[in-house]
C-alpha cells in the first residue's frame, strides 16, 4: 500500500478544525498520513507525493511479523534500490551489546519488528529523516526501535545515509522476510523548520 499525500485532504482537515475550535493551533509538527494494516497483512507500505514544505520528517511505527521470526524493515527513498545506502546499528539483545555497519546496501534498516511467537507484542520505532528536501546534502536518517517480549527482544539505535542529493518525495518500506501483520501502523509526520 502506498499512501499518496493529497493537498485537498489537508484543506478539509483545516476546515474541520476551524469550525470545531475557535483558535486552531497551527503548530510545527503535523500529521501527513497514516497506514494501518488490515487483516490480510501487507508486503510493503509507502508514502508518495510527500510535501516539500517541512524541514524534517518523522515516521512512527508499530509492527509485527505474523508468520516468522523477528525481522527488520528495509527503507528505500524515491524508488532507488541501487547500492547507495549505508547503515549503522547499535543494539542490545538483553544479554549483550553490539554494533554493526554496512556500506553499499540497497536499503536502510531503521526498524526491528516483533516475531510471530511473541503473541500480542509489536515492535515499535521512531525514525527521523533529516533535512529531506535539501538538494545539497546526502540524506540521513536516525531511528530508535525495538521490541520486548518478556524474555526476548532487542533495542536498537540506527543511523543511515542515502548517498543522493535529491529531495525525498517518497519512500517504501518492505520486511526482509515475512509480512507486516494486522494492526501494524505507520504514521508520517512533518516537522517545520
Amino acid at each position: 500500500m502506498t499512501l499518496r499525500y493529497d493537498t485537498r485532504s489537508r484543506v478539509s482537515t483545516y476546515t474541520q478544525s476551524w469550525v470545531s475550535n475557535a483558535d486552531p493551533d497551527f503548530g510545527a509538527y503535523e500529521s501527513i498520513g497514516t497506514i494501518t494494516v488490515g487483516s490480510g497483512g501487507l508486503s510493503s507500505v509507502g508514502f508518495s507525493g510527500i510535501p516539500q514544505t517541512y524541514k524534517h520528517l518523522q515516521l512512527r511505527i508499530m509492527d509485527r511479523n505474523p508468520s516468522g521470526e523477528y525481522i527488520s524493515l528495509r527503507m528505500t527513498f524515491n524508488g532507488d534500490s541501487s547500492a547507495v545506502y549505508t547503515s549503522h546499528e547499535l543494539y542490545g539483545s538483553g544479554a549483550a551489546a553490539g554494533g554493526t555497519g554496512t556500506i553499499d546496501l540497497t536499503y536502510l534498516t531503521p526498524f526491528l519488528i516483533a516475531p510471530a511467537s511473541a503473541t500480542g507484542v509489536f515492535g515499535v520505532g521512531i525514525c527521523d529523516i533529516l533535512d529531506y528536501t535539501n538538494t545539497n546534502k546526502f540524506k540521513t536518517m536516525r531511528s530508535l526501535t525495538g521490541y520486548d517480549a518478556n524474555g526476548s527482544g532487542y533495542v536498537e539505535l540506527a543511523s543511515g545515509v542515502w548517498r543522493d542529493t535529491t529531495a525525498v518525495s517518497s519512500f517504501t518500506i518492505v520486511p526482509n522476510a515475512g509480512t507486516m501483520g494486522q494492526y501494524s501502523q505507520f504514521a508520517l509526520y512533518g516537522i517545520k523548520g
Partner: protein
Amino acid sequence: MAVSAYEVISTQTLGSAAATVTLSSISQTYTDLVLIVNGVINSGESGIFCQVGNGSVDTGTNYSTTYILGDGSNAVSGRETSATNTFLGRIQADPYNSTSIIHYMNYANTTTYKTFLGKGSDATYAIQQVGLWRSTSAINTIKLSLVSTFTFSAGTTFTLYGIKAA
C-alpha cells in the same frame, strides 16, 4: 494547512519532593504519548520506574524491559522480565540534572500489548530501553517512581504530550 499533531496534555512541576508522580485521566484521543522528565532526585541515580493502567495502575508482574547503556567505556545490555514495572529513562541526584524522553506507542488501542521506548542520560550513563506491558487495555494512568526510598526533587518537571496521527 494542517493542524498541529503534537500537543501539550499536561505539565507538572513538583513544589516539593515526591516519591511517586501519577498522571491520570489521560485523554484517549491521541495516537502516541511522549513524556519528558527533567530534573533531579534526592540521592544516587535511578531508572524511572513506570506502571500504567486504565483507571488504576497495574501492579502485577506484567512488565518487562530490554535496555542498552553506555558509561563512556563500555556498552552493555540487560533485561528484566515479569517485573512489577518497566524502567524507562534515567535520573540522577543534584547537581546532575537529567532528561528522559519516554514514548508510549499506540497507548489507547485495545488490541495489542503496549510497547514503550525510553531514552535518558545522566552524568554516568546514557541508556535506551524498550518496555512492554502485557495488557490490551488502553492506558489512561501512568505512575512513576524510583529505586528504594529515592524521591523526585522539587522543581523536577513532567510534561506529557500527545501525538495525533491523521
